[in-house]
């Protein structure tokens, strides 16, 4: 069951890690962690061209890490919490498996005393 879930998540996780492999994109995510921002605000700290900034944003968007507002001229970018969670979520069942067991390990050690 887990194996199937892992396979289904493979593509998405690859995109996420690919997106995270670039320092500018990571800086953008760090900025967005503090709240939504415009493309101008996101590009300001970086000495790269506007097309390069657009490319970075597209990579982040296709990885499901950010969303862009669709209305008006002010189109803020914001973190897509679900995207980041999906990247980490595939590991959660493994963690729960061991968390459960360590609860019982603690109980067993109590009984043995």
């Amino acid at each position, binding site marked *: 069951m*887990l194996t199937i879930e892992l396979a289904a998540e493979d593509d998405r996780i690859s995109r996420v890690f690919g997106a*995270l492999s670039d320092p500018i994109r990571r800086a953008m995510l760090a900025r967005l962690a503090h709240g939504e921002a415009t493309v101008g605000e996101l590009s300001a700290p970086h000495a790269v061209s506007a097309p390069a900034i657009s490319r970075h944003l597209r990579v982040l968007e296709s990885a499901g890490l950010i969303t862009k507002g669709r209305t008006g001229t002010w189109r803020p970018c914001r*973190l897509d919490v679900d995207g980041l969670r999906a990247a*980490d979520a595939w590991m959660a069942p493994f963690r729960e498996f061991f968390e459960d067991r*360590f609860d*019982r*390990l603690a109980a067993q050690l*109590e009984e043995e*005393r």
Partner: protein
Amino acid sequence: MTTTDRGFTITRLLGAPREAVWRAWTDPAHLGWFFNPDHDPGADPVAVDLRVGGAWRQRMVISDDTSYVTGGVYRVIDPPERLVFTWGAVGGWPELDPADPEAAEAPLATVLLNDLGGRTELVFRLEFPAGVDTERLQAWLARGVREGWTDTIDRLVVATGASVG
């Protein structure tokens, strides 16, 4: 701590001396805690071959007609402090390749037991060395993204009140 993989760490404070915790990890008679909660520990024997390359196998019963074998293949045995094993079982879950039970793709578990004078800090780490896309992962890790990303996740957890893996 580690530079080549992804994984997670669970830390627990246990009210027992380190030797007792070591025994709970490595003595078949003391591995009852690893079974599923409603499993009769007497129903299936636990096999432990405590040497490097040796296997620990334990059958996990989910229901009357569903069960699987889990356990590990030992890689480092340093009592009563450190135990490293490839997590899984040949023919079990996670599936280990019988020809190569120490395959780089298998999840690697590290158990560290820190002596706190009658109590023990258990630091358990599970690593997924190959992950999903090794090349990207390596590039990502080489640039030190791990810390940054963890911080981001932490902030998100705070922001959303959600628990993230």
